[in-house]
């Protein structure tokens, strides 16, 4: 049964795309900010993990845990120093600033790490697989998908079960009234971007272990992330996972029919969903 295998691989690939997209979805959901540098920040995270691995020689998963607080701090500072200044009624300034940031990040990575493609080695894990009878699945794709589900569950828990999540939602609803509750919207935004960067670090780990990367591949990751967010419906985290899975399945099915169609099939699936459900699969009840 070749098709079951193709679809299963597609679903697991979708986990990677959902990881790319979760941070984007989080930030957009809270502050209506589209971060065009998101893909480049993922690549930056991958280089940071690679740096930790090559300097200390520790396991990449541990290295990612080391990178997380650093990335949180970078996200927090980025929001405080740069993005908070451009957020406002006009959506163009943040787009321009993050577009510029994308170029800056790419060139800094190019200067620091050259254009050679790199990879985060994960040892025997890279080729390990489990035989489920009908299909054989790679341990790495399974871990990726499991991490995506865990990340989205964790983000949902933060959103709906903690005081911080209440503050996120309240600030997203109405920043002025939120400030009357003693919430500093700018501070909440900084924490949100920091949290998004922690998710970015997890995405970066799997990006770097799965395939080669170089400083220029960020924008393509951004496109997949974007499509996953839009398919799922803006601001819905489970929708983002569904969006990632749809793109992943479309890509593997497309590739099974004709290897040239892999990337194209993902984009076509995105356009079809947009045609049928312009607001995505799980849109929020209000905006």
């Amino acid at each position, binding site marked *: 049964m070749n098709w079951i295998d193709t679809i299963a691989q597609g679903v697991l690939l979708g986990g990677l795309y959902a990881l790319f997209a979760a941070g984007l979805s989080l930030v957009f959901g809270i502050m209506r900010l589209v971060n065009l540098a998101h893909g480049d920040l993922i690549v930056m995270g991958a280089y940071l993990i690679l740096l930790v691995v090559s300097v200390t020689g520790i396991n990449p998963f541990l290295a990612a845990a080391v990178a997380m607080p650093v990335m949180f701090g970078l996200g927090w500072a980025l929001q405080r120093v740069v993005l908070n200044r451009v957020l406002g009624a006009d959506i163009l300034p943040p787009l321009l600033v993050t577009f510029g940031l994308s170029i800056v990040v790419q060139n800094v990575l190019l200067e620091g790490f050259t254009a050679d493609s790199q990879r985060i080695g994960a040892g025997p894990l890279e080729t390990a697989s489990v035989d489920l009878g009908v299909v054989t699945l790679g341990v790495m794709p399974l871990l990726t998908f499991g991490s995506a589900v865990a990340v989205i569950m964790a983000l949902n828990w933060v959103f709906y079960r903690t005081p911080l999540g*209440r503050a996120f*939602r*309240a600030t997203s*609803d*109405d920043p*002025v009234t939120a400030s*009357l*509750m*003693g*919430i500093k919207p700018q501070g909440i935004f900084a924490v949100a971007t920091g949290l998004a960067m922690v998710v970015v670090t997890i995405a970066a780990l799997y990006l770097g272990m799965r395939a080669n990367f170089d400083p220029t591949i960020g924008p393509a990751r951004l496109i997949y992330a974007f499509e996953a967010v839009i398919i799922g419906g803006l601001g819905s985290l489970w929708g983002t996972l569904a969006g990632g899975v749809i793109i992943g399945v479309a890509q593997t099915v497309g590739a099974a029919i004709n290897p040239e169609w892999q990337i194209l099939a993902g984009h076509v699936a995105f356009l079809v969903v947009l045609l049928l459900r312009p607001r995505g699969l799980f849109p929020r009840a209000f905006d």
Partner: protein
Amino acid sequence: MTLLRTMGLTARYGDFQALFGVDMALETGQTVAIIGANGAGKTTLMRSIAGVLRNAGDQVMFDGRAIGALPADEIMGLGIAMVPEGRKLFPSLSVEENLLIGAYGRRAVGHWRLETVYALFPILRERRMSPGTALSGGQQQMVAIGRALMSNPRVLLCDEISLGLAPVVIRDIYAAFPQIKAAGASVVLVEQDIGQAMKVADRVYCMMEGRVTLSGAPGDLSREAIHDAYFGKAA
């Protein structure tokens, strides 16, 4: 003693000046009502005190401290909570979450917590899991008041809490005020219903076109004087 005072308070929205030197004082434990027609500057005054609009620091004094230039979240932390005009519940939050978030920026020890707010407005306990915006107008107003109380404020600012509500609902809501005052809050009310304002206030300020045109204890003010202060003197 005077808890909250504005001195020569001016406020503007861009080129439009909304307040022209407003002087107002709230004594500890008292209730002040601010009345006036639409556009008189009542809401602007409340937004200036709450810090949504920033002013020169010494134009607003709270407990001997200049707070005019502070942002809203810091003013709330000092103990001034506002029930904003139009209630402004958070649509993404349930009734209970709306109440809980009222204590986000200030965890002061005091009478008010979830239990006591539910005791004050029992209907909210029944609707605690509903989205805030699914409630009737009067219930939403109760949530907005409860949300402000959750921080155990020293000053409670209420902006047009009777707006758009049926008289019987307004009566229910005002019935809560003796308890709110007993728990230690001094109150500034903006009210279009003059009768209601005169009933609950220790002192009334009447505003017109960004200025205070009349002030005094309700018993000392004649209907005629209020009429003139409200609408301007007939030529």
